[in-house]
């Protein structure tokens, strides 16, 4: 397989999970965001006041000059079409789920369906966020959903503000891709 000069990585997941934050955490440029103020209609469980409506963008320059492009998808379902557009040709997908949202598991299963191709091809890593707030669920229900859907992928409890957690997700993605490719 030949890789282009720019490698795309997609950060997706439910609203308020921390996608914009995760990109800002590892991007070497100030991230480009398309956030707008949330209306009361969509401002539900999370305490944030804005939401992404098109995409977020950040990047990392590799030592061979290539760019790792970080694209964040909108969290609202009405922009799902953007998810598939952004995922086209991506190396992999980092999926973040707001672990304290009342509908966290439903959202997770929904996004799992949206990125079924990536789940099937070992190019998906899941991070459950906000579990440190104390009322979050353990990871077991997420594993159950993955089992039910026949998906095996890394699931971590992450804080998107912590660089080492975002890096862990990327490293795990590379490890699964490498392992999968070596069995082809």
């Amino acid at each position, binding site marked *: 397989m030949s890789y282009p000069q720019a490698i795309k990585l997609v950060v997706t997941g439910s609203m308020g999970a921390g996608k914009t934050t995760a990109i800002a955490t590892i991007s070497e440029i100030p991230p480009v965001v398309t956030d707008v103020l949330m209306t009361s209609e969509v401002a539900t469980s999370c305490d944030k006041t804005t939401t992404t409506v098109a995409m977020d963008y950040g990047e990392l*320059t*590799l030592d061979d000059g*290539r760019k790792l492009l970080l694209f964040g998808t909108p969290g609202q379902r009405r922009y799902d079409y953007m998810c598939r557009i952004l995922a086209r040709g991506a190396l992999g997908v980092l999926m973040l789920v707001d672990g304290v949202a009342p509908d966290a598991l439903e959202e997770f299963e929904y996004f799992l369906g949206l990125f079924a191709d990536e789940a099937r091809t070992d190019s998906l890593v899941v991070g459950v966020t906000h579990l440190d707030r104390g009322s979050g669920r353990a990871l077991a229900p997420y594993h159950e959903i993955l089992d039910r859907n026949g998906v095996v992928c890394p*699931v971590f409890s992450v804080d998107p503000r912590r660089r080492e957690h975002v890096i862990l997700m990327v490293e*795990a993605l590379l*490890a*699964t*891709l490498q392992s999968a490719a*070596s069995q082809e």
Partner: protein
Amino acid sequence: MPLQMILVGFDERDQRYFRSVLELIESRLEERWLPVNRVGDRYDVMIIDVDSEEGRTLWERRPEGFPLAVAAARARDVACEWLLAKPFRPLGPNSIAETLNAAGRALASRRPALPPADSTFGQTQRLAPLAGVTETVLKAVASGAPAKIVHAGEVALLLDPPGRRYYRRISRERLDLVLKDRRAGTVTFEVCPRIEFETSIREWDLKGKPIERLLWLAFILGHDLQPRGWAENDGIRLRHWPDFASLPHTATHLRLAAAFTRHPVSVADVAVTSRILQGEVIRFVNACAALGLVEASAAPARAAPRVAMDEGERTGLFRSILRRLSQLGAA
């Protein structure tokens, strides 16, 4: 059998110089030596630059006898058993060659029967059990009652198996050293009444962590190479990835998790194909078993994936990304 060493407190220039000399004098060394990078990795010898602040602090706090500590210093009057003189010299008194050869001989005399699994890739001989700290921690957890883990005469940890928490009274670095201690009998545990246990936690103002983290550390850092809950020829599969966000880990652990989650594979097979020491693979599987993640089956295991060893464009790209992430993480 390579012996592993870690350099602590060295500045970058000294590290580079040390490693270069090591390569140059390889033929003059009685053992093969492999430098490791992180404190979380297994190592036999710790070489501490006691002229640096980090090194001096660690040197003063190191547990007595742990496993073998060499002081690297400009001064010749450092109170230590093993002195590596600075500036480093390849040969001669207190040189790299002399110090490492002496350390190698001392290690050989301390542990005459190292488990064979640690020595070669993919050997499948019967693995010798090593009693030690891991065993003590397991017994303390299995006791089902609040317990104190005592090291060198002082309470190092408090365990609350019913509450699935542990409380650390010593620094994280020292805990690493305690768990790596090869000597049996240096760590003991004593069950204590709940009231006394909770009073100690309050008095020492300790914060609890999940006991799974301690079990993970005990297996990953310890020297227990006996399969726990699985057999050598079993096909091993991980039900899920460990939650590495809350567990200390290395890049090797990520590679192993990826290798073991796809299909049942044997430990020996993974060790061979991924070129990871079998002892490391056993430690990883044992640690995962302690977290309840391992499914072992007697069914023939599939061939293990060849992990991260192909030299194609993908590997080049991935290495490039990993290097960038590593720079990012260090920033």
